[in-house]
Each structure stands twice: as structure tokens, then as C-alpha cells.
């Protein structure tokens, strides 16, 4: 059903095309009608920005100096974000695929087709034959609605979200250790920390504005310990770089814990009063001497000792991590082993002392709180807990027996699509052909579907496979809240109406539910009404939003949840007195090191790790259309160490074939000393034949079900290509004016 038959035609019609100016060109004579304070649509720093609106068009931005997180600062994605709003590639009307080609349709035609197909499949194969796959670059209102839409609207158990590829290992680790899933400290604590231990986070490229706080800490005399297999700009600027072998974090953290215990840096009073399970963890750490850890991680033992001493001696310190340690089959264990360091030294719940995962997506935090996860209900409640089910059903007015049971993670959903258990899919805010591991398998899953409907504002590589594409809205065309990486709920404001016939995402989803005959659960007229129901649905849960209002957010420059009552100011710092397990204590976990699912061998001798560049956001569906960003990084490349390159006789800039057990791709070689000789790196933001995920391993963490994007076995083959990298052609000295 869902095959892409004429790729060239689809690209010609829907892009990505490059566009690099306001819709009516660069002009100095604008009369700005309104300046709309809002936030950046991209990462979880959620920088404040002002959008300039002229004649119902977003024509520029102005730094929002008065927002305390970023004080006007932005990264290049944030600066150019407004250029996507009136981009010529925007989808302006519903599309139905007929004979392999997308044809314009009316909303009624498209929605009726969706509903009749869903009804047909559900009548034939049962309610669970439709899957819903959502995202976290949506407002929290929309993420709440997507969970409710799946359970109460389509009555399917199969709903999940793209945080499964992003945040879930941290979420699971946080829940296990602390009983709640949120960063423990506001970022204003960072400058107060003497030591920052940053593991698997290339802050410079993935959370650029977070560097404001890192450098404030440095200016105060602080130091950084960076754990990363690559010398990223953040690692370069750090004081101590532990350049470990990908996927060996547990051994490194256990080695550091060993030193902390041996040298007496543990806080016994804290451990006794506020934690459980220390003895077992201590026994395990005894076996991970710095030498043992060094052999596994390939980090010199002296450096492990040095890092442990720096962290242990500091009066205040924070541990932060991101996808580098989380995208592993041991993702949750990696997280827990770093949390052990925090708990052993009692460096948490105080100004300048704490812990935090750095959320990836704009609303990566809010998107994992209110019920679009496979096993979750609003307020970080569990769909497996009878009391939680009862409460949410009562809020929704839904008979309890109608609420489905837990579903499965997205990679497992795609397996079920190939097995024929899931026959139809609705997706919003994701691009599966770029972001899921093992692209070729994903393609087979999509092609096997009976019906696929996609809501998006640009035609993504994934939506090319859809039967119906419904034109949604950008962040500037709707209002709602997001929650940034420190747990601060902020407000996105509407700047202009959606162009053409495009509609707000919540309207589209609600309209489908209504036409499915489930309208009584979906009576919302605005995001504010959705938010008001969300507040009640989250009340009493861990992520309690009951006391948050749009007005309070504006007044306080954001509200940190939990915020249980209307007169509650919010909770910037967690764990000052108690943790969120029933007994108020945090839990140590004795974690044994296990290697990644796939390790190098003779056939595939290198470790492939994937990641990001500063110019592209996630699957690139938004950023690969903006001229400035594409000019800076037009295509993916493979980073190879000169020693490895010499062995393979590969020259800088030469195109090479990178092969894994799942696929292969051709990428220009970037020969750099900033990567380990046993490791290669490819940024993942591109699709089709440029997708790094053609190679990655879909093996999952047993707890969080996150795929292992950050380590698989690969080899490099020389192909004697004479083709230069796209930008490399210019090295011949052709000047730009001659090219023009």
C-alpha cells in the first residue's frame, strides 16, 4: 500500500528545497505589527525568543534578553528557526496518495478516508490493529491529547512516542534511583558547582546555550570532567577528558566509585539516612579497581583516579549526562552507575550539588510526563497501576474496562507491523525513516502497512510512505506549554495563523476522534481547555501540574513542576529533604559491566557511533530545508582517526563505504585526531542513502527499550571514488563569484 514509487517526483514537489530568507526577502523597511515572546522550537534548553510579525507573517526574530535561561542567546538553529514558517515546502492542504502520487484533497475527503480505513481495519483485525506514534517536539497539551486519542479515541493499546529514541533510559534510571523522572537541579545551580562531570553530552553542539551556565561555572573557577569517545568542542574545552571506548560507561563509573570508597570521599551519614542498597553496591565496586576499569574502558587508570578525586574532593559538584550514555542496550545501567557516584558522595539536593539528564527534544521532558508513552498515563502515572487507571478514567469519563492495557515501545511496534499485528499507523511529529535504527527494516515495516496516515508540516522521508498526509502546524502557529530540561514549564505563544489549509495538530487529531464516534471525550476548543484537563489529570501524580497556569508561567518566567496547588511557586530543586520512593530514600544499584550488543570482530573491526551536528535538529525535516544550516553541513561524513585511515589507505575527503551487518552507506571521510582509532562516527540527521541508521543496531535496552545507536560493529571499504564531498569541490580554489 504505502510504497514510494516515484521518489524524484515527490522530492521535486515537496523538497527538501533550500530556502534562506524571509518570505518576501530581506527588507530594512518593515513595520512590525507585533512582537510575540515565545521559545525556540528545537532543543530542550527552550531558549526564549521574540518573533517579529508583519501582516500575519513571521518575518524575523529579536533576542529575548529578559528570559532568564538564555538572556537573548540562541544557536544557529534558533536564529534561523523562523525561516521554516513560510518555507515554500510547507504542506498547505491534505494529500491522498493515488497510484503512488500525492494528490490534493479536501479535509473532508482526507479525514473520511482515514476514519473509514481505521474502522475497516479495526472491524477486521481488532482495536489494537492501529498504532499511534507521536513525538516530543509538540506542546505538552498535544502530547497529552495523543495519549488520550490512542486510548479513548482509537481504543488501541499501541501508542508510543519518539522519546523512546531519546530520553527513556534516563527516565527509567531516574525512576529506579529516585522514584521520579526529572532533572534534580535548576541550571542556575551549575555556576555554583566546583566540578561538573559531563558524560556522553556534546553540549557545544547539542545544547549550545547550556554552555552559558558551563562557562559561568568556569569563570567562578570551576572545572569540567568530560566523558566522551570523541574530542567534541565540549571535551576540548574541558579540564579532564576521559576518552573511553563507546559503551563502557558502567566500568568507568564503577572504577570511579571504587576510588571514592577507597580514598574516603563517601558521605556515610547521607548514605545511612537517605539511601538503600549501599552494601551490595559497595561490594560490587570493590572489584572495579582503576586497573580493571582501565582495561575495559581504555581510559588510563591515573585519569580515572584523578577524575574520582576531583569529584570526591569538591564541596559542590554536579553530574550531567545525555544520549551518549543512554543510547545503549545498557542505557539504564549506564545512568544508574553515574547516579551511584552522586548518592555515594551525597552531592545532591543542595545549591550547586546535584544531578541531571540533559533532555534532547524541545519538549522531551513534558512529552514523557502525560501519557503518550506505551505504559504511561498523565502525571507520570502507570497504566499498569489499578488506582492510576481508575483516577484517569474518572477524569476522562471513560468506563475503566475501555481503557486499554500497556502497549509496546516503538521499535517493537515496528516489529509488530512486519508481523501483521499492527495494520494501520497514525504518526505525528516524527520521521521514522531517519530516526529509527536499521532503516531498511523500517522501510519494510512501512511498506507492509495496510494504511498509514501522517500529520506533518513538511513532507518528511517517513511521510513519503504515507497514504494520507495531513498538513499540521509549526510551533509558531499554536499555543501551549513545554517543559525544558531543568523541569521548567514555559509557554509557547501563537504568532500567526497556519498558512493555506494547514490546521493546528490538536484540531486534526480531535476531528479524527470525533468522526470515529468518540467525540464526547474530545470537546476541546483551544489548547487552554486541553491544559485545564491535563492539570486535573496530572493532579496527585509525580508530574503534578495542577497548580500551573498560563498566567503563572508568564509571571514567573516558567514554573518548575511539581506544582500541586494554585498558590505553590513550583519546585526548582528536587530531593532537598526526601526522594520520591515510598520510604523517601534513593536507591543504589549494583551494576555489573556488560559490553554493547555488538562488539568489533575480524569482519567488522570498528565501533560505529552516531550523533549530531549543531546545524541540524533530529531527523532534519525542519533544518535540512534552511539554506544557511545546510551550507554549514550539507551532508553526513564519517570521522576516522588518521591511524585507522592510514591502515585503510583512505585520504581525507575520499568517499568510503561503511558497512555493518544491517546495511551500508557511502560517506566522505573526515580524518581527524579527535576520535579514537577504534571508533568511527557518522552524524545521523539525513535519510535514504545518506542515513547513518542504515547501519545502526536495533538491539534494545531490556528496561527502557531504547535502541543502541551509540555502538555497533562496522567496517570501512575503499571504493576508489573520485567524487569529492559536496563542499570539498570548492577546495580547488573556485571562488564563489565564479561559481555564480
Amino acid at each position, binding site marked *: 500500500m504505502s510504497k514510494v514509487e516515484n521518489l524524484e517526483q515527490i522530492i521535486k514537489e515537496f523538497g527538501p528545497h533550500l530556502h534562506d*530568507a524571509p518570505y518576501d*526577502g*530581506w527588507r*530594512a523597511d*518593515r513595520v512590525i505589527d507585533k512582537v510575540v515572546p515565545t521559545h525556540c522550537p528545537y532543543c530542550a534548553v527552550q531558549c526564549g525568543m521574540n518573533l517579529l510579525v508583519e501582516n500575519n507573517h513571521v518575518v*524575523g*526574530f529579536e*533576542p529575548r*534578553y529578559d528570559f532568564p535561561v538564555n538572556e*537573548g*542567546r*540562541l*544557536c*544557529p538553529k*534558533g*536564529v*534561523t528557526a523562523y525561516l521554516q514558517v513560510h518555507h515554500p515546502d510547507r504542506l498547505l492542504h491534505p494529500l491522498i496518495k493515488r497510484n503512488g502520487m500525492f494528490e490534493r484533497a479536501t479535509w473532508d475527503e482526507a479525514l473520511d478516508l482515514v476514519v473509514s480505513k481505521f474502522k475497516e481495519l479495526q472491524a477486521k483485525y481488532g482495536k489494537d490493529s492501529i498504532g499511534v506514534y507521536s513525538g516530543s517536539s509538540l506542546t505538552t497539551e498535544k502530547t497529552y491529547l495523543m495519549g488520550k486519542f490512542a486510548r479513548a479515541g482509537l481504543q488501541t493499546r499501541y501508542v508510543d512516542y519518539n522519546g523512546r529514541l531519546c530520553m527513556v533510559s534516563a527516565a527509567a534510571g531516574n525512576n529506579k534511583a529516585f522514584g521520579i523522572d526529572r532533572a534534580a537541579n535548576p541550571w542556575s545551580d551549575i555556576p555554583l558547582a566546583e566540578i561538573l562531570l559531563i558524560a556522553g553530552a556534546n553540549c*557545544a*553542539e547539542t545544547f*549550545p*546555550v*547550556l*554552555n*552559558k551556565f*558551563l*562557562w559561568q561555572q*568556569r*569563570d567562578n*573557577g570551576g572545572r569540567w570532567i568530560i566523558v566522551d569517545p570523541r*574530542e*567534541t*568542542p*565540549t571535551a*576540548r*574545552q574541558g579540564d579532564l577528558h576521559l576518552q573511553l571506548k563507546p559503551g563502557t560507561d558502567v566500568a568507568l563509573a564503577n572504577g570511579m566509585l571504587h576510588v571514592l570508597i577507597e580514598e574516603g570521599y563517601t558521605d556515610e551519614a547521607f548514605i545511612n539516612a537517605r539511601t538503600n542498597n549501599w552494601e551490595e553496591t559497595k561490594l560490587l565496586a570493590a572489584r572495579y579497581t582503576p586497573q580493571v576499569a582501565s582495561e575495559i574502558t581504555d581510559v588510563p587508570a591515573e585519569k580515572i583516579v584523578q577524575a574520582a578525586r576531583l569529584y570526591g574532593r569538591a564541596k559542590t559538584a554536579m553530574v550531567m549526562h545525555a544520549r551518549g550514555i543512554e543510547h545503549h542496550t545498557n542505557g539504564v545501567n549506564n545512568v544508574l552507575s553515574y547516579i551511584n557516584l552522586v548518592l555515594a558522595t551525597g552531592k545532591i539536593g543542595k545549591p550547586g550539588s546535584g544531578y541531571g539528564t540533559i533532555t534532547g527534544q524541545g519538549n522531551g521532558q513534558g512529552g514523557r510526563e502525560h501519557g503518550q508513552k506505551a505504559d504511561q498515563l498523565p502525571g507520570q502515572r502507570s497504566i499498569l497501576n489499578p488506582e492510576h487507571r481508575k483516577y484517569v478514567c474518572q477524569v476522562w469519563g471513560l468506563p475503566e474496562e475501555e481503557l486499554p492495557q500497556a502497549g509496546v515501545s516503538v521499535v517493537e511496534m515496528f516489529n509488530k507491523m512486519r508481523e501483521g499485528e499492527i495494520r494501520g499507523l497514525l504518526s505525528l511529529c516524527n520521521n521514522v525513516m531517519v530516526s529509527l535504527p536499521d532503516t531498511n527494516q523500517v522501510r519494510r515495516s512501512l511498506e507492509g502497512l495496510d494504511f498509514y496516515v501522517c500529520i506533518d508540516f513538511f513532507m518528511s522521508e517517513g511521510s513519503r510512505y504515507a497514504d494520507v498526509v495531513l498538513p499540521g502546524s509549526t510551533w509558531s502557529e499554536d499555543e501551549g506549554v513545554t517543559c525544558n530540561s531543568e523541569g521548567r514549564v514555559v509557554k509557547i505563544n501563537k504568532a500567526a495563523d497556519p498558512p493555506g489549509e494547514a490546521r493546528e495538530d490538536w484540531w486534526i487529531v480531535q476531528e479524527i476522534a470525533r468522526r470515529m464516534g468518540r467525540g464526547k471525550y474530545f470537546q476541546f476548543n483551544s489548547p487552554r481547555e486541553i491544559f485545564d484537563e491535563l492539570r486535573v489529570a496530572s493532579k496527585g501524580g509525580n508530574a503534578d501540574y495542577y497548580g500551573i497556569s498560563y498566567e503563572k508561567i508568564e509571571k514567573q518566567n516558567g514554573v518548575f513542576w511539581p506544582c500541586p496547588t494554585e498558590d505553590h511557586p513550583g519546585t526548582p530543586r528536587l530531593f532537598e529533604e526526601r526522594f520520591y520512593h515510598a520510604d523517601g530514600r534513593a536507591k543504589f544499584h549494583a551494576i555489573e559491566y556488560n559490553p554493547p550488543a555488538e562488539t568489533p570482530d575480524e569482519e567488522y573491526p570498528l565501533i560505529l557511533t552516531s550523533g549530531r551536528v*549543531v*546545524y541540524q535538529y533530529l531527523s532534519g525535516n525542519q533544518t535540512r530545508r534552511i539554506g*544557511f544550516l545546510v*551550507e*554549514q553541513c550539507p551532508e553526513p*561524513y564519517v570521522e576516522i582517526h*588518521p591511524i585507522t585511515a592510514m591502515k585503510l589507505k583512505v585520504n*581525507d*575527503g575520499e568517499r568510503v563505504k561503511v558497512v555493518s551487518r544491517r546495511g551500508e552507506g557511502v560517506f*566522505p571521510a*573526515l*580524518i*581527524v*585526531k*579527535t576520535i579514537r582509532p577504534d571508533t568511527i562516527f557518522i552524524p545521523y540527521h539525513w535519510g535514504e542513502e545518506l542515513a547513518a541508521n542504515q547501519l545502526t543496531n536495533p538491539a534494545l535496552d531490556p528496561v527502557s527499550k531504547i535502541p543502541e545507536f551509540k555502538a555497533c560493529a562496522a567496517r570501512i571499504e575503499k571504493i576508489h571514488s573520485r567524487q*569529492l*564531498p559536496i*563542499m*570539498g569541490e*570548492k*577546495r580547488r580554489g573556485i*571562488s*564563489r*563569484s565564479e561559481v555564480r
Partner: protein
Amino acid sequence: MEETMFIDPQRCIGCRACVAACRECATHKGYSMIYVDYLDRSETTATMPTVCMHCVEPTCALVCPADAIKVSEEGIVMSALKPRCLDCRNCVNACPFGVPKYNTEMHLQMKCDMCFDRSSEGLKPMCASVCPTGAISFGRYEEIVPLRRTKPVNAHVFGNQRVETKVYLMLPTDADTVEVDGCGVFEGHIEADAQQPKLESWIDTQVEQSDKSNEF
């Protein structure tokens, strides 16, 4: 002391938010006049931002046969005046920092004017507003310098030419001047460089191509 720019290359993360934001200043008409270069991508991820240093005695203005480049009362060296610019490109070739560019479409030299239209209204220039790390900062000397652990330097020696600038470089050394020899190489590294001629990575070239062609 009046507000000026402080460039701290240590802090640069190479994100080029400044390059993108420069285009947004209304008078820049979509052109960016700031450069961020990899120093040598094959060796390191280090990058360096370059803005106009706003020389006290600007070479660009001195070599201009038409007197098209004016200096404001605040010491900001402006882009060439459109009615006067002769398309001769003397300024492009003479600037010791390689800053001005010649815009072939507009037949005009353009360069960083410290976002004169913004700074004259009390707003920070675009690049310094957005820079995530403070690699480019704008403010008063007495406000910014005490916060930093680096030394502000605004004297540069190029062979026989000594240039003093309104803009400060923040350096992790005790030097009072930045000294560069005739080949454009910073003195401290001359020996090492002579021993091992460097091959440029293609990713350096990609950026330099768009930044350094001296033309739009």
C-alpha cells in the same frame, strides 16, 4: 568607558549562531559579516570567530582613495558609503585582519559596523546577543573584564605595523600584544609549523571558501 566587543576564542564552540544572526540586523540586508573558522579540523575542534576589530587608526579607511569609510564618534568603523565607494577593493586587500568583503551585487564594500543601528539604540549587536558562550561579548570593559580569567589585549603587531583596536581579544596569556610575523603566523608556533607543513582538512576549506573569498 563606552561599550565595546570582547572576543574570547577559548570559549568558541564553532556553532556559527553569530554568522546566522549577523544577517538579521536590518541594515545588513541578509549578508553576514562575521567569520568563524576551524583552526585545523584534522587536529582539533577549536574554532575562532573574527569580527571587525574597529582599529583606532583603521587601515581600511586610510587606504580608501574616496574617503568612503567613516569612523563614528564612538570609534566604530562603518561600511563604505554607497555614493563614494569606487569598487577598488583597496580596503579588502589592506585590512590586516581580513575583515571587509566586497559585495559584487551591490558594488559596495561591506563590513561589520557593530550593528550600528542596534547599538545606537542601546541594543547589543546581533552576534554578541546570541553567542551562547560569551566568545563574543559586548559591554563595558569594567563590567566584563573582572568576570573573566583571561587578559584583554587590544594591541596587535603585524611585522612593522602596530594596530590598536577598539575591540579586545581575551587571551589566556600574559602578553600585552598579539604579535604576528610577515607570513600571518602567530609567533609562538612558528617553529613547530616550519617542521611540519600542515595539510588542510576539506572541512576547513568549506568554511573558508564561503568566509574568505572576500566577496559576497
